[in-house]
Protein backbone atom coordinates (compact mmCIF):
# COMPACT_ATOMS: atom_id res chain seq x y z
CA UNK A 1 0.00 0.00 0.00
CA UNK A 2 1.69 3.17 -1.21
CA UNK A 3 1.97 5.90 1.40
CA UNK A 4 3.36 9.42 1.43
CA UNK A 5 5.88 9.82 4.23
CA UNK A 6 9.06 11.59 5.21
CA UNK A 7 12.25 9.64 5.71
CA UNK A 8 12.54 10.64 9.36
CA UNK A 9 9.32 8.80 10.11
CA UNK A 10 10.22 5.93 7.79
CA UNK A 11 13.28 5.35 10.01
CA UNK A 12 10.91 5.00 12.93
CA UNK A 13 8.47 2.64 11.22
CA UNK A 14 11.39 0.53 9.98
CA UNK A 15 12.85 0.36 13.48
CA UNK A 16 9.48 -0.71 14.82
CA UNK A 17 9.32 -3.40 12.14
CA UNK A 18 12.76 -4.63 13.15
CA UNK A 19 11.61 -5.13 16.73
CA UNK A 20 13.37 -2.10 18.20
CA UNK A 21 12.05 -1.60 21.72
CA UNK A 22 14.31 1.16 23.09
CA UNK A 23 15.22 4.56 21.66
CA UNK A 24 17.17 7.34 23.32
CA UNK A 25 18.61 10.50 21.84
CA UNK A 26 19.00 14.23 22.21
CA UNK A 27 17.21 16.60 19.82
CA UNK A 28 19.44 18.57 17.45
CA UNK A 29 18.50 20.08 14.10
CA UNK A 30 17.89 18.46 11.62
CA UNK A 31 17.02 15.19 13.37
CA UNK A 32 14.34 16.55 15.68
CA UNK A 33 11.57 14.94 13.65
CA UNK A 34 13.03 11.47 14.36
CA UNK A 35 12.97 12.18 18.09
CA UNK A 36 9.40 13.44 17.84
CA UNK A 37 8.28 10.29 15.99
CA UNK A 38 9.71 7.98 18.68
CA UNK A 39 8.32 10.20 21.47
CA UNK A 40 4.87 9.90 19.91
CA UNK A 41 4.86 6.27 18.76
CA UNK A 42 6.94 4.29 21.27
CA UNK A 43 5.39 4.94 24.69
CA UNK A 44 1.81 3.94 23.68
CA UNK A 45 3.26 0.66 22.38
CA UNK A 46 4.96 -0.05 25.71
CA UNK A 47 8.40 0.59 24.26
CA UNK A 48 11.07 2.77 25.82
CA UNK A 49 11.57 6.33 24.69
CA UNK A 50 14.00 8.53 26.60
CA UNK A 51 15.22 12.02 25.76
CA UNK A 52 18.65 12.37 27.37
CA UNK A 53 20.44 15.50 28.52
CA UNK A 54 23.25 15.36 25.99
CA UNK A 55 24.59 13.14 23.22
CA UNK A 56 27.23 11.76 25.59
CA UNK A 57 24.49 10.60 27.92
CA UNK A 58 22.39 9.22 25.09
CA UNK A 59 25.29 7.07 23.90
CA UNK A 60 25.73 5.62 27.39
CA UNK A 61 22.01 5.31 28.08
CA UNK A 62 21.86 3.31 24.86
CA UNK A 63 24.79 1.23 26.12
CA UNK A 64 22.66 0.50 29.17
CA UNK A 65 19.61 -0.43 27.12
CA UNK A 66 21.66 -2.74 24.90
CA UNK A 67 23.55 -4.31 27.79
CA UNK A 68 20.14 -5.03 29.33
CA UNK A 69 19.15 -6.87 26.17
CA UNK A 70 16.99 -4.29 24.37
CA UNK A 71 17.12 -3.82 20.61
CA UNK A 72 18.19 -0.19 20.70
CA UNK A 73 18.43 2.77 18.35
CA UNK A 74 19.66 6.32 18.70
CA UNK A 75 19.88 9.19 16.25
CA UNK A 76 21.77 12.45 16.09
CA UNK A 77 23.05 15.12 13.74
CA UNK A 78 26.56 16.42 13.14
CA UNK A 79 26.94 18.74 16.17
CA UNK A 80 25.89 15.87 18.45
CA UNK A 81 28.00 13.36 16.55
CA UNK A 82 31.14 14.97 17.96
CA UNK A 83 30.05 13.78 21.42
CA UNK A 84 29.46 10.18 20.35
CA UNK A 85 33.01 8.85 19.76
CA UNK A 86 33.65 7.97 23.43
CA UNK A 87 30.36 6.10 23.78
CA UNK A 88 30.76 4.40 20.40
CA UNK A 89 34.26 3.22 21.29
CA UNK A 90 33.05 1.69 24.57
CA UNK A 91 30.04 0.08 22.85
CA UNK A 92 32.31 -1.45 20.21
CA UNK A 93 34.72 -2.61 22.90
CA UNK A 94 31.90 -4.31 24.84
CA UNK A 95 30.66 -5.82 21.55
CA UNK A 96 27.13 -4.46 21.87
CA UNK A 97 24.74 -4.01 18.89
CA UNK A 98 23.35 -0.50 18.39
CA UNK A 99 21.83 1.35 15.42
CA UNK A 100 22.84 5.01 15.09
CA UNK A 101 21.12 7.27 12.55
CA UNK A 102 23.31 10.27 11.72
CA UNK A 103 21.89 13.15 9.70
CA UNK A 104 24.75 15.21 8.35
CA UNK A 105 24.62 19.00 8.47
CA UNK A 106 27.21 21.59 7.49
CA UNK A 107 30.32 21.55 9.62
CA UNK A 108 32.73 21.79 11.27
CA UNK A 109 31.78 23.03 14.71
CA UNK A 110 28.30 24.43 15.13
CA UNK A 111 28.14 24.54 11.33
CA UNK A 112 24.87 25.15 9.57
CA UNK A 113 21.37 23.72 10.00
CA UNK A 114 21.10 22.42 6.45
CA UNK A 115 22.47 19.34 4.74
CA UNK A 116 26.05 18.35 3.97
CA UNK A 117 28.04 15.13 3.55
CA UNK A 118 30.96 16.19 5.75
CA UNK A 119 30.82 13.41 8.35
CA UNK A 120 31.88 10.69 5.87
CA UNK A 121 35.32 10.24 7.44
CA UNK A 122 34.27 10.47 11.09
CA UNK A 123 31.68 7.74 10.39
CA UNK A 124 33.76 5.38 8.26
CA UNK A 125 37.19 5.67 9.92
CA UNK A 126 35.72 6.39 13.32
CA UNK A 127 36.88 9.21 15.57
CA UNK A 128 36.79 7.24 18.79
CA UNK A 129 39.84 5.66 20.40
CA UNK A 130 41.07 2.20 19.49
CA UNK A 131 40.99 1.90 15.67
CA UNK A 132 37.64 0.04 15.44
CA UNK A 133 35.20 -0.15 12.50
CA UNK A 134 31.42 0.24 12.10
CA UNK A 135 29.27 -0.79 9.14
CA UNK A 136 27.97 2.46 7.60
CA UNK A 137 24.88 2.34 5.34
CA UNK A 138 23.75 5.37 3.26
CA UNK A 139 20.02 5.45 2.35
CA UNK A 140 19.02 8.06 -0.24
CA UNK A 141 15.24 7.80 -0.25
CA UNK A 142 12.31 7.42 2.12
CA UNK A 143 11.87 3.81 1.05
CA UNK A 144 15.52 3.07 1.72
CA UNK A 145 15.30 4.69 5.17
CA UNK A 146 12.54 2.20 5.95
CA UNK A 147 14.41 -0.78 4.45
CA UNK A 148 17.96 -0.02 5.58
CA UNK A 149 17.09 0.59 9.24
CA UNK A 150 15.79 -2.98 9.32
CA UNK A 151 19.00 -4.15 7.64
CA UNK A 152 21.00 -2.14 10.16
CA UNK A 153 19.37 -3.86 13.15
CA UNK A 154 20.09 -7.25 11.61
CA UNK A 155 23.75 -6.46 10.85
CA UNK A 156 24.26 -4.87 14.28
CA UNK A 157 23.04 -7.99 16.00
CA UNK A 158 24.79 -10.33 13.56
CA UNK A 159 28.20 -8.81 14.34
CA UNK A 160 27.43 -7.39 17.82
CA UNK A 161 28.79 -4.05 16.66
CA UNK A 162 27.15 -0.66 16.10
CA UNK A 163 25.82 0.13 12.59
CA UNK A 164 25.55 3.71 11.38
CA UNK A 165 22.84 4.96 9.01
CA UNK A 166 24.46 7.98 7.36
CA UNK A 167 22.16 10.31 5.46
CA UNK A 168 21.19 13.93 4.97
CA UNK A 169 18.17 16.00 6.01
CA UNK A 170 17.27 16.75 2.38
CA UNK A 171 16.78 13.01 1.96
CA UNK A 172 14.85 12.36 5.17
CA UNK A 173 12.81 15.56 5.32
CA UNK A 174 11.28 15.11 1.86
CA UNK A 175 7.77 13.64 1.54
CA UNK A 176 7.99 10.70 -0.83
CA UNK A 177 6.01 7.69 -1.86
CA UNK A 178 6.99 4.55 -0.06
CA UNK A 179 5.57 1.18 0.88
CA UNK A 180 5.75 -0.37 4.33
CA UNK A 181 6.74 -3.90 3.46
CA UNK A 182 8.62 -5.59 6.33
CA UNK A 183 11.85 -7.35 5.41
CA UNK A 184 12.73 -10.67 6.98
CA UNK A 185 16.26 -11.41 8.24
CA UNK A 186 17.41 -14.54 10.04
CA UNK A 187 18.70 -12.96 13.21
CA UNK A 188 21.29 -14.98 15.12
CA UNK A 189 19.88 -16.82 18.16
CA UNK A 190 19.51 -14.61 21.21
CA UNK A 191 22.95 -13.94 22.61
CA UNK A 192 23.90 -15.14 26.10
CA UNK A 193 25.47 -11.85 27.12
CA UNK A 194 22.64 -9.51 28.12
CA UNK A 195 22.31 -8.70 31.81
CA UNK A 196 19.11 -9.07 33.78
CA UNK A 197 19.98 -10.63 37.08
CA UNK A 198 21.17 -14.21 37.42
CA UNK A 199 17.67 -15.65 37.87
CA UNK A 200 16.72 -14.54 34.37
CA UNK A 201 19.34 -16.75 32.72
CA UNK A 202 18.57 -20.38 32.01
CA UNK A 203 21.87 -21.47 33.53
CA UNK A 204 21.51 -19.10 36.46
CA UNK A 205 25.12 -18.09 36.04
CA UNK A 206 26.27 -14.48 36.48
CA UNK A 207 27.33 -12.63 33.33
CA UNK A 208 29.85 -9.83 32.96
CA UNK A 209 29.99 -7.07 30.33
CA UNK A 210 33.06 -4.90 30.13
CA UNK A 211 34.67 -2.42 27.74
CA UNK A 212 38.12 -2.82 29.29
CA UNK A 213 39.47 -6.12 28.01
CA UNK A 214 43.02 -4.90 28.62
CA UNK A 215 42.16 -4.41 32.29
CA UNK A 216 40.06 -7.52 32.92
CA UNK A 217 40.50 -11.05 31.65
CA UNK A 218 37.36 -13.09 31.08
CA UNK A 219 36.69 -16.67 30.06
CA UNK A 220 35.79 -15.54 26.56
CA UNK A 221 38.87 -13.27 26.21
CA UNK A 222 41.58 -14.43 28.60
CA UNK A 223 44.23 -11.98 27.31
CA UNK A 224 44.22 -8.57 25.65
CA UNK A 225 45.88 -9.95 22.51
CA UNK A 226 43.31 -12.73 22.13
CA UNK A 227 40.63 -10.05 22.42
CA UNK A 228 42.33 -7.82 19.78
CA UNK A 229 42.66 -10.82 17.45
CA UNK A 230 38.96 -11.55 17.93
CA UNK A 231 38.05 -7.92 17.16
CA UNK A 232 40.34 -7.81 14.11
CA UNK A 233 38.82 -11.01 12.69
CA UNK A 234 35.32 -9.68 13.28
CA UNK A 235 36.07 -6.45 11.41
CA UNK A 236 37.47 -8.52 8.54
CA UNK A 237 34.32 -10.65 8.48
CA UNK A 238 32.21 -7.50 8.40
CA UNK A 239 33.82 -6.62 5.06
CA UNK A 240 31.57 -9.26 3.47
CA UNK A 241 28.58 -6.97 4.03
CA UNK A 242 29.65 -4.61 1.21
CA UNK A 243 26.67 -3.39 -0.89
CA UNK A 244 26.51 -1.02 -3.83
CA UNK A 245 24.43 -0.22 -6.92
CA UNK A 246 25.50 0.56 -10.46
CA UNK A 247 23.63 2.60 -13.06
CA UNK A 248 24.67 2.28 -16.72
CA UNK A 249 28.28 1.54 -15.74
CA UNK A 250 28.79 -1.28 -18.22
CA UNK A 251 29.92 0.82 -21.18
CA UNK A 252 30.60 4.04 -19.26
CA UNK A 253 33.96 5.76 -19.87
CA UNK A 254 33.22 8.36 -17.16
CA UNK A 255 32.04 6.92 -13.87
CA UNK A 256 30.45 9.09 -11.19
CA UNK A 257 30.80 7.91 -7.57
CA UNK A 258 28.28 9.29 -5.09
CA UNK A 259 25.97 8.33 -2.17
CA UNK A 260 23.04 9.98 -0.46
CA UNK A 261 21.43 13.02 -2.06
CA UNK A 262 24.37 13.58 -4.44
CA UNK A 263 23.75 10.07 -5.78
CA UNK A 264 20.24 11.14 -6.78
CA UNK A 265 21.74 14.23 -8.39
CA UNK A 266 24.25 12.01 -10.21
CA UNK A 267 21.51 9.69 -11.53
CA UNK A 268 19.88 12.72 -13.07
CA UNK A 269 23.25 13.76 -14.55
CA UNK A 270 23.82 10.28 -16.03
CA UNK A 271 20.40 10.49 -17.69
CA UNK A 272 21.13 13.95 -19.14
CA UNK A 273 24.64 12.95 -20.25
CA UNK A 274 23.38 9.80 -21.97
CA UNK A 275 20.80 11.98 -23.75
CA UNK A 276 23.70 14.03 -25.08
CA UNK A 277 25.55 10.91 -26.17
CA UNK A 278 28.08 10.92 -23.30
CA UNK A 279 28.71 7.41 -21.94
CA UNK A 280 28.43 8.19 -18.23
CA UNK A 281 27.58 5.79 -15.40
CA UNK A 282 27.19 5.90 -11.62
CA UNK A 283 28.59 3.61 -8.94
CA UNK A 284 26.65 4.26 -5.77
CA UNK A 285 28.05 2.82 -2.52
CA UNK A 286 25.18 1.65 -0.31
CA UNK A 287 27.62 0.64 2.43
CA UNK A 288 30.25 3.35 2.89
CA UNK A 289 32.16 0.95 5.12
CA UNK A 290 32.96 -1.70 3.91
CA UNK A 291 33.68 0.44 0.86
CA UNK A 292 32.84 -1.11 -2.58
CA UNK A 293 36.35 -0.84 -4.01
CA UNK A 294 35.97 -3.81 -6.41
CA UNK A 295 33.59 -2.28 -9.01
CA UNK A 296 35.62 0.95 -9.01
CA UNK A 297 38.88 -0.93 -9.40
CA UNK A 298 37.38 -2.91 -12.30
CA UNK A 299 36.37 0.25 -14.17
CA UNK A 300 39.75 1.85 -13.42
CA UNK A 301 41.39 -1.20 -15.01
CA UNK A 302 39.23 -0.61 -18.09
CA UNK A 303 40.59 2.93 -18.31
CA UNK A 304 37.46 4.83 -17.26
CA UNK A 305 37.72 8.29 -15.70
CA UNK A 306 36.11 9.10 -12.37
CA UNK A 307 34.09 12.01 -11.04
CA UNK A 308 33.51 11.90 -7.26
CA UNK A 309 30.40 13.90 -6.35
CA UNK A 310 30.23 14.65 -2.61
CA UNK A 311 28.91 17.66 -0.67
CA UNK A 312 32.20 17.60 1.27
CA UNK A 313 35.67 19.13 0.96
CA UNK A 314 36.93 16.42 -1.40
CA UNK A 315 40.43 17.89 -1.73
CA UNK A 316 40.90 17.37 2.01
CA UNK A 317 39.38 13.89 2.19
CA UNK A 318 36.19 11.86 2.50
CA UNK A 319 34.72 9.72 -0.28
CA UNK A 320 37.49 10.94 -2.60
CA UNK A 321 40.13 9.20 -0.45
CA UNK A 322 38.35 5.84 -0.66
CA UNK A 323 37.94 6.22 -4.41
CA UNK A 324 41.65 7.07 -4.74
CA UNK A 325 42.50 3.95 -2.76
CA UNK A 326 40.29 1.82 -5.02
CA UNK A 327 41.55 3.42 -8.24
CA UNK A 328 45.18 3.05 -7.05
CA UNK A 329 46.65 5.49 -9.53
CA UNK A 330 45.22 3.78 -12.62
CA UNK A 331 42.81 6.53 -13.60
CA UNK A 332 42.19 10.26 -13.36
CA UNK A 333 39.83 11.38 -10.60
CA UNK A 334 37.98 14.70 -10.70
CA UNK A 335 35.88 16.13 -7.90
CA UNK A 336 32.60 17.94 -7.42
CA UNK A 337 32.77 19.25 -3.85
CA UNK A 338 30.88 21.46 -1.43
CA UNK A 339 32.73 24.40 -2.99
CA UNK A 340 30.59 23.80 -6.11
CA UNK A 341 27.36 24.47 -4.27
CA UNK A 342 24.82 26.57 -6.15
CA UNK A 343 24.37 29.12 -3.35
CA UNK A 344 26.86 30.64 -0.90
CA UNK A 345 24.35 30.47 1.94
CA UNK A 346 23.87 27.49 4.22
CA UNK A 347 21.13 26.11 1.98
CA UNK A 348 23.42 25.70 -1.00
CA UNK A 349 23.69 22.20 -2.45
CA UNK A 350 25.13 20.41 -5.46
CA UNK A 351 22.93 20.71 -8.54
CA UNK A 352 22.93 18.45 -11.65
CA UNK A 353 23.94 21.39 -13.86
CA UNK A 354 27.24 21.84 -12.05
CA UNK A 355 28.02 18.12 -12.17
CA UNK A 356 27.22 17.93 -15.88
CA UNK A 357 29.45 20.95 -16.48
CA UNK A 358 32.40 19.19 -14.83
CA UNK A 359 31.57 15.95 -16.59
CA UNK A 360 31.83 17.65 -19.90
CA UNK A 361 35.09 19.29 -18.94
CA UNK A 362 36.52 15.80 -18.29
CA UNK A 363 35.35 14.70 -21.71
CA UNK A 364 36.81 17.86 -23.23
CA UNK A 365 33.43 18.99 -24.52
CA UNK A 366 32.69 22.75 -24.51
Amino acid at each position, binding site marked *: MIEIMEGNHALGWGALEAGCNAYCSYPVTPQNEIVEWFAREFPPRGKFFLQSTSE*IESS*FLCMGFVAGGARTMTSTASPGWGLYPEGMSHIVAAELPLVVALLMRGGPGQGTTRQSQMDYTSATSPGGQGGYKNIVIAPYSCQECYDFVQLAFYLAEKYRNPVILLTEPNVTRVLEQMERRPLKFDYPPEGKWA*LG*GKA*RHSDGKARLITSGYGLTSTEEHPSYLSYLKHLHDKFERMREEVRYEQYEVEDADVVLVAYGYTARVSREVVKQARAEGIKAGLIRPVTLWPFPAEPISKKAEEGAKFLVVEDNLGEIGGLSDDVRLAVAGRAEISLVTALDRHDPGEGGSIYPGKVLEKLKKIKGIR
Partner: protein
Amino acid sequence: MVKKVVCGKPRLWRYRSTSLPFCPGCQHGVGARAVLETVEELGIEGKTIFLGGGGCAYPLPSLLDLDAMQCPNGRATSIGSAMKRLHGGETVIITYQDDNDALAVGTEPLIHAALRGDAITVILANNAGYGSTGWQMASPGDTPVPPEMDKPNPLFPINIMELLAEFEGVSYLARGTVSSANDFEETKGYIKTAIAKQMAGAGFNLVEILTACPARWHLTPQESLKWIREEMVAGLPLGEFKNGGGN
Protein backbone atom coordinates in the same frame (compact mmCIF):
# COMPACT_ATOMS: atom_id res chain seq x y z
CA MET B 1 33.35 -30.21 69.35
CA VAL B 2 31.28 -28.54 66.65
CA LYS B 3 32.83 -25.74 64.63
CA LYS B 4 30.24 -23.60 62.89
CA VAL B 5 31.05 -20.72 60.57
CA VAL B 6 29.75 -17.44 61.98
CA CYS B 7 30.81 -15.22 59.10
CA GLY B 8 33.56 -14.91 56.55
CA LYS B 9 33.84 -14.05 52.87
CA PRO B 10 30.54 -12.75 51.46
CA ARG B 11 28.89 -15.70 49.74
CA LEU B 12 28.54 -13.70 46.51
CA TRP B 13 32.31 -13.15 46.40
CA ARG B 14 34.12 -15.19 43.78
CA TYR B 15 36.98 -16.91 45.65
CA ARG B 16 40.38 -15.34 44.95
CA SER B 17 43.49 -16.84 46.39
CA THR B 18 45.54 -13.67 46.12
CA SER B 19 44.53 -10.41 47.79
CA LEU B 20 42.03 -8.01 46.28
CA PRO B 21 43.51 -5.52 43.82
CA PHE B 22 43.33 -2.74 46.41
CA CYS B 23 45.98 -1.07 48.54
CA PRO B 24 46.35 -2.17 52.19
CA GLY B 25 43.70 -0.40 54.26
CA CYS B 26 41.62 0.63 51.25
CA GLN B 27 37.99 0.15 52.23
CA HIS B 28 36.49 -0.56 48.82
CA GLY B 29 36.45 -4.16 50.02
CA VAL B 30 34.38 -3.23 53.08
CA GLY B 31 32.00 -1.14 50.95
CA ALA B 32 31.58 -4.11 48.61
CA ARG B 33 30.92 -6.37 51.59
CA ALA B 34 28.17 -4.02 52.80
CA VAL B 35 26.47 -4.23 49.41
CA LEU B 36 26.94 -7.97 48.91
CA GLU B 37 25.76 -8.90 52.40
CA THR B 38 22.67 -6.73 51.97
CA VAL B 39 21.89 -8.34 48.60
CA GLU B 40 22.33 -11.77 50.24
CA GLU B 41 20.15 -10.97 53.21
CA LEU B 42 17.36 -9.53 51.04
CA GLY B 43 17.56 -12.66 48.86
CA ILE B 44 17.59 -10.60 45.66
CA GLU B 45 20.85 -11.88 44.12
CA GLY B 46 18.90 -13.46 41.27
CA LYS B 47 17.50 -10.14 40.13
CA THR B 48 20.29 -7.74 40.98
CA ILE B 49 22.53 -6.05 38.41
CA PHE B 50 25.79 -4.63 39.82
CA LEU B 51 27.24 -1.73 37.81
CA GLY B 52 30.83 -0.83 38.71
CA GLY B 53 32.29 2.55 37.95
CA GLY B 54 35.79 3.55 36.91
CA GLY B 55 38.84 4.12 39.03
CA CYS B 56 40.06 1.81 41.78
CA ALA B 57 36.73 0.00 42.07
CA TYR B 58 36.86 -0.99 38.37
CA PRO B 59 37.72 -4.67 39.03
CA LEU B 60 34.85 -5.24 41.49
CA PRO B 61 32.18 -6.35 38.96
CA SER B 62 34.47 -9.08 37.65
CA LEU B 63 34.98 -10.49 41.17
CA LEU B 64 31.43 -11.08 42.36
CA ASP B 65 28.70 -13.58 41.55
CA LEU B 66 26.06 -11.15 40.28
CA ASP B 67 25.10 -10.04 36.80
CA ALA B 68 27.50 -7.14 36.48
CA MET B 69 29.01 -4.62 34.13
CA GLN B 70 32.23 -2.64 34.21
CA CYS B 71 30.96 0.74 33.05
CA PRO B 72 33.02 3.50 31.50
CA ASN B 73 34.24 6.15 33.91
CA GLY B 74 31.26 8.10 35.28
CA ARG B 75 28.56 6.47 33.18
CA ALA B 76 27.26 3.75 35.51
CA THR B 77 24.25 5.88 36.48
CA SER B 78 23.19 6.44 32.86
CA ILE B 79 23.57 2.75 32.12
CA GLY B 80 21.58 1.96 35.27
CA SER B 81 18.81 4.36 34.30
CA ALA B 82 18.36 2.57 31.00
CA MET B 83 18.47 -0.92 32.49
CA LYS B 84 15.94 -0.04 35.17
CA ARG B 85 13.47 1.08 32.50
CA LEU B 86 14.09 -2.04 30.53
CA HIS B 87 13.75 -4.63 33.23
CA GLY B 88 11.25 -2.76 35.31
CA GLY B 89 10.48 -2.81 38.97
CA GLU B 90 11.43 -6.36 39.83
CA THR B 91 15.08 -5.90 38.87
CA VAL B 92 17.36 -4.22 41.37
CA ILE B 93 20.04 -1.93 39.88
CA ILE B 94 22.93 -1.07 42.15
CA THR B 95 25.84 1.08 41.00
CA TYR B 96 29.09 1.18 42.97
CA GLN B 97 31.04 4.31 42.09
CA ASP B 98 33.81 6.26 43.83
CA ASP B 99 33.64 10.03 44.26
CA ASN B 100 35.67 10.79 41.13
CA ASP B 101 33.40 8.56 39.09
CA ALA B 102 30.07 9.85 40.36
CA LEU B 103 30.80 13.45 41.35
CA ALA B 104 33.36 14.50 38.75
CA VAL B 105 33.12 12.71 35.42
CA GLY B 106 29.65 11.37 36.17
CA THR B 107 27.95 14.49 37.50
CA GLU B 108 25.66 14.82 34.53
CA PRO B 109 24.36 11.22 34.55
CA LEU B 110 23.98 11.27 38.37
CA ILE B 111 22.07 14.54 38.58
CA HIS B 112 19.78 13.72 35.69
CA ALA B 113 19.03 10.21 36.92
CA ALA B 114 17.96 11.90 40.16
CA LEU B 115 15.93 14.52 38.27
CA ARG B 116 14.17 11.79 36.33
CA GLY B 117 13.55 9.89 39.55
CA ASP B 118 15.00 6.66 38.11
CA ALA B 119 14.53 4.03 40.82
CA ILE B 120 18.16 2.89 41.08
CA THR B 121 20.46 2.72 44.10
CA VAL B 122 23.80 4.48 43.80
CA ILE B 123 26.47 3.45 46.30
CA LEU B 124 28.96 6.30 46.34
CA ALA B 125 32.21 5.17 47.97
CA ASN B 126 33.72 8.54 48.72
CA ASN B 127 37.43 8.17 49.44
CA ALA B 128 38.29 11.79 48.69
CA GLY B 129 40.52 11.19 45.76
CA TYR B 130 41.62 9.44 42.62
CA GLY B 131 43.40 6.27 43.48
CA SER B 132 44.23 4.46 40.31
CA THR B 133 45.48 7.44 38.39
CA GLY B 134 48.25 8.35 40.73
CA TRP B 135 46.45 9.62 43.79
CA GLN B 136 45.29 13.02 42.73
CA MET B 137 43.01 14.90 45.08
CA ALA B 138 39.43 14.76 43.89
CA SER B 139 37.44 17.92 43.31
CA PRO B 140 34.53 16.71 45.32
CA GLY B 141 33.97 15.43 48.76
CA ASP B 142 37.24 15.88 50.58
CA THR B 143 36.91 18.57 53.11
CA PRO B 144 39.07 19.23 54.91
CA VAL B 145 42.18 18.41 52.91
CA PRO B 146 44.14 15.37 54.11
CA PRO B 147 47.08 16.43 56.27
CA GLU B 148 49.90 15.94 53.79
CA MET B 149 48.46 18.66 51.55
CA ASP B 150 49.59 21.86 53.21
CA LYS B 151 47.78 24.07 50.74
CA PRO B 152 44.16 25.02 51.46
CA ASN B 153 41.69 22.90 49.55
CA PRO B 154 41.36 24.82 46.29
CA LEU B 155 38.30 22.84 45.46
CA PHE B 156 34.97 23.05 47.22
CA PRO B 157 33.52 19.65 47.99
CA ILE B 158 30.18 18.60 46.60
CA ASN B 159 27.83 17.73 49.42
CA ILE B 160 25.74 15.44 47.26
CA MET B 161 23.12 15.08 49.98
CA GLU B 162 22.26 18.78 49.91
CA LEU B 163 22.50 18.88 46.10
CA LEU B 164 20.06 16.01 45.48
CA ALA B 165 17.74 16.44 48.47
CA GLU B 166 15.73 19.09 46.62
CA PHE B 167 14.91 16.88 43.64
CA GLU B 168 11.40 15.46 43.79
CA GLY B 169 12.52 12.27 42.09
CA VAL B 170 14.86 11.41 44.97
CA SER B 171 13.35 9.16 47.63
CA TYR B 172 16.27 8.35 49.97
CA LEU B 173 19.68 9.86 50.74
CA ALA B 174 21.99 8.76 53.50
CA ARG B 175 25.67 8.99 54.33
CA GLY B 176 27.58 6.60 56.54
CA THR B 177 31.08 5.34 57.10
CA VAL B 178 32.65 1.92 57.54
CA SER B 179 35.16 3.17 60.09
CA SER B 180 33.99 0.71 62.78
CA ALA B 181 31.88 -2.44 63.04
CA ASN B 182 28.93 -0.41 64.34
CA ASP B 183 29.27 2.13 61.53
CA PHE B 184 29.38 -0.81 59.11
CA GLU B 185 26.10 -2.14 60.46
CA GLU B 186 24.55 1.32 60.33
CA THR B 187 25.66 1.81 56.71
CA LYS B 188 24.29 -1.63 55.81
CA GLY B 189 21.03 -0.47 57.27
CA TYR B 190 21.04 2.57 55.00
CA ILE B 191 21.74 0.36 51.97
CA LYS B 192 18.94 -2.03 52.96
CA THR B 193 16.50 0.88 53.21
CA ALA B 194 17.67 2.30 49.90
CA ILE B 195 17.19 -1.01 48.09
CA ALA B 196 13.80 -1.45 49.72
CA LYS B 197 12.85 1.99 48.40
CA GLN B 198 14.03 0.96 44.95
CA MET B 199 12.01 -2.25 45.07
CA ALA B 200 8.98 -0.21 46.05
CA GLY B 201 9.65 1.93 43.00
CA ALA B 202 9.97 5.05 45.15
CA GLY B 203 12.49 6.85 42.93
CA PHE B 204 16.21 7.60 42.97
CA ASN B 205 18.24 6.79 46.07
CA LEU B 206 21.87 7.17 47.01
CA VAL B 207 23.97 5.97 49.92
CA GLU B 208 27.36 7.65 50.35
CA ILE B 209 29.99 5.70 52.24
CA LEU B 210 33.06 7.60 53.45
CA THR B 211 35.84 5.08 52.88
CA ALA B 212 39.49 5.22 53.78
CA CYS B 213 42.28 5.58 51.20
CA PRO B 214 45.41 5.43 53.36
CA ALA B 215 47.79 5.25 50.42
CA ARG B 216 46.74 8.60 48.95
CA TRP B 217 46.15 10.28 52.24
CA HIS B 218 49.66 9.31 53.37
CA LEU B 219 48.20 8.05 56.64
CA THR B 220 48.30 4.67 58.31
CA PRO B 221 45.04 2.73 58.07
CA GLN B 222 44.30 3.52 61.72
CA GLU B 223 44.99 7.24 61.29
CA SER B 224 42.82 7.22 58.15
CA LEU B 225 39.79 5.98 60.04
CA LYS B 226 40.44 8.53 62.78
CA TRP B 227 40.73 11.25 60.11
CA ILE B 228 37.40 10.17 58.59
CA ARG B 229 35.62 10.25 61.95
CA GLU B 230 37.06 13.61 62.99
CA GLU B 231 37.86 15.70 59.92
CA MET B 232 35.95 14.28 56.98
CA VAL B 233 32.69 13.89 58.88
CA ALA B 234 32.97 17.53 60.01
CA GLY B 235 32.57 18.59 56.39
CA LEU B 236 30.28 15.74 55.35
CA PRO B 237 27.91 14.96 58.26
CA LEU B 238 26.49 11.45 58.58
CA GLY B 239 22.90 10.25 58.76
CA GLU B 240 19.79 10.07 56.65
CA PHE B 241 19.18 13.26 54.74
CA LYS B 242 16.03 12.31 52.89
CA ASN B 243 13.58 9.54 53.54
CA GLY B 244 10.38 9.80 51.53
CA GLY B 245 9.28 11.55 48.37
CA GLY B 246 10.01 10.23 44.92
CA ASN B 247 7.25 8.97 42.63
